[in-house]
């Protein structure tokens, strides 16, 4: 009989939960119908993996969205309306992602969606959001084929751009001719970035000596280090497709293996972890990123100050700054088009020219959803990333290279 009691209790619980949902849903619909009620607030839906392997990049981005919303509201809102942001944690789970996207569009009535710093999740959520005619902006997913595959807008440069910048710098300014490329096979971002880099480096006249492979969660790279050491006479430098979790260990193990050749990497290496883990070995590592937090630009300084005041710490990485810019892009698009209607915001986004963001100047060329942006070339010195230069790519590897 105890089972029956439990079952009855459970059914009661599910029914109660259903009621809760059901009572929430119709009111939301009712609110949606009279346009005036919905229009007095602009609601931005945010989808982030705040728990799980992507938390270290998605978390800061959400923090910055909150900061941007506060800044916009402090300045009087957009078109006289307040902005509100709601974030759903999707826990690095596909079903969660789909349900969250449906919920934002169906019951939360958002005007725009900002989501994720990783390509896979954007490609999972964005097509659903697109069906509702709501624009989707990703702060940090850098795969250049995102627009054609999911209709999402990028707030960041594409991997093709950053790979080209670093290849050009290495070949033309540093006179490096041969490279060994370390690819993280378990990470799509690394695979794409390394493919673009190889293409760009060959374009400028360089030669890829060999490719080597590792996986995201490795802690021992001695096999790769040994191989690199045995071929260091024919290799000028090494390009590592790392992410925040492993760049420090990789750099440390390369240097401890007695290899002194230059190490280059991408925006995944833009993390305090590089200096923390690798210590003095981090000296001289060259990376591309979206910005430098050491910048003395007034808007960057103001942003860092605001972030510190709101969250009690400095921005962790460039993805934080990108979250801020993504929100500002939505605000700017609404201002440009003069309407917060979801279907019009996309048109507003395409009108954006020379928007001065924390991560550089953003404009969308006609018909493109990947912005024209400069890439920051940084060098690790004394535990900080110092700017070498901001540059726009002269050669853009064809986006079809990335799978």
């Amino acid at each position, binding site marked *: 009989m105890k*089972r029956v009691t*439990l*079952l009855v209790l*459970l059914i009661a*619980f*599910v029914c109660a*939960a*259903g009621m*809760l*949902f*059901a009572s929430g*849903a119709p009111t939301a*619909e009712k609110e949606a119908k009279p346009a005036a009620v919905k229009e007095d607030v602009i609601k931005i839906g945010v989808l982030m993996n*705040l*728990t799980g392997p992507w938390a270290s990049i998605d978390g800061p981005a959400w923090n910055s969205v909150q900061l941007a919303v506060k800044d916009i509201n402090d300045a009087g809102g957009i078109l006289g309306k307040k902005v509100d942001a*709601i*974030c*759903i*944690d999707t*826990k*690095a*789970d*596909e*079903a969660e*992602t*789909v*349900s969250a996207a*449906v*919920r934002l569009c*169906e*019951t939360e009535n958002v005007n725009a969606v900002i989501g994720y710093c990783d*390509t*896979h999740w954007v*490609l*999972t959520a964005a*097509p*659903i959001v697109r069906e509702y005619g709501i624009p989707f902006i990703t702060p940090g997913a850098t795969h250049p*084929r995102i627009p*054609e*595959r*999911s209709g999402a807008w990028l707030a960041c440069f594409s991997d093709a751009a950053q790979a080209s910048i670093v290849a050009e710098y290495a070949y033309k300014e540093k006179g490096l001719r041969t490279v060994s490329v370390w690819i993280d*096979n*378990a*990470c*799509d971002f690394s*695979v794409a970035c390394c493919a673009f880099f190889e293409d760009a480096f060959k374009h400028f006249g360089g030669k890829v000596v060999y490719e080597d492979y590792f996986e995201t969660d490795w802690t021992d790279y001695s096999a790769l280090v040994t191989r690199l050491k045995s071929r260091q006479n024919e290799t000028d430098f090494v390009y590592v497709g790392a992410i925040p979790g492993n760049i420090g260990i990789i750099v440390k193990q390369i240097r401890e293996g007695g290899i002194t050749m230059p190490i280059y990497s991408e925006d995944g290496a833009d993390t305090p972890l590089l200096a923390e883990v690798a210590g003095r070995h981090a000296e001289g590592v060259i990376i591309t990123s979206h910005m430098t937090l050491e910048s003395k630009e007034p808007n960057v300084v103001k942003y860092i100050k605001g972030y510190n005041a709101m969250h009690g710490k400095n921005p962790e990485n460039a993805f934080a700054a990108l979250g801020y810019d993504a929100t500002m892009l939505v605000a700017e698009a609404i201002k440009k088009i003069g309407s917060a209607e979801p279907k019009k915001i996309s048109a507003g986004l395409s009108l954006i020219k020379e928007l001065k963001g924390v991560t550089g100047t953003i404009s969308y060329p006609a018909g493109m959803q990947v912005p024209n942006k400069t890439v920051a070339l940084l060098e690790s010195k004394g535990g900080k990333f110092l700017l070498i230069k901001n540059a726009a790519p002269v050669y853009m590897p064809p986006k079809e290279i990335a*799978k």
Partner: protein
Amino acid sequence: MFDIRATFSKVDRRLMAVILIAVLFLCLWVASTAFSKYIVFIITLIGVYIVASASLNLTNGYTGLFSLGHAGFMAVGAYTSALLTFPVKGREIFVIPKLPMFLGGPEAAWPFLPALVMGGVFAAILAAVVGLPVLRLRGHYLSVASLGLMVLVTALAMNLRNLTRGSIGINSIPTYTNIWWAYGCAVVTVYVVWRVVNSSFGRAMKAIREDEIAARVQGINPLKYKLLAFTIGAFFAGIAGGLYAHISGAIRPYAFSFNLTFQIVIMVVLGGQGTISGPIVGTVLVTVLRYVLKPLEEALGVYGLVELIYALLLIITMLRKPEGIMGRKSGGPRGGRWVGSLGGKKS
């Protein structure tokens, strides 16, 4: 007189089952028209997870093989079904290989049902091949070996780049899974498990679970029945994987890893292993809880609260009611609780 009662109760149970299914589908129809798309999605997702948990129950609950390889079989089903059904137009944009001639040629994409079944068949074949050596192991060794199988499948999915796109995963899979597909499959799964369990096969499986040596003495070939349970379980895991791929529209190797494995195991253990209703109850509870707590999580700003409550719930269950919500208390010495079901019914 005994015969009459037996026949009567049998008819009764069948009738009950038919009525229950009819009521279920009526409820689903009402729900699908009355509720928002978000709630319908959650209900559908529950159906998909029921297929997975009910089939896991066959090996873990009834045969006593504590397998942790279920997510691996789901991955096989998901990838098979996704690759077979992927629309021809999208294959170029996403760099997915076209189908070879014997599967319908480059201009073909399979309809949902055959692809789904094919996914199940592949998973079952894998289970049969792998099961032969693995099922000779017992207890923890089996758990670890089956976990190894899961890791193997995800590693394969990651490295067979030309087929699976590696760690990038496959996106924009047509979302065929709706409430009817999910619950159609769930009903079939539960029915098959029920029939298997209440047949001579099922009794042999339970005998093996309670005491393998005693079962052998009775003339039961343990490997045969273990393999059967493992293969049937894997078939439906493959189906569940296919349903999952077509409801989320996106899969990646790591989606079928530890998280999913333990999520399904929690559903089964919480609901009650070795009962028909257990996995269903566990699945409904875990999934509903997850989505009910979401707004709370957002309001409090404590992301990850759901997982904490899961863990707490599991600990409480293990302490207070280790046999699960729907599980029966064991009536005496080892295996006592099964005496009734072993001796009571004949088919």
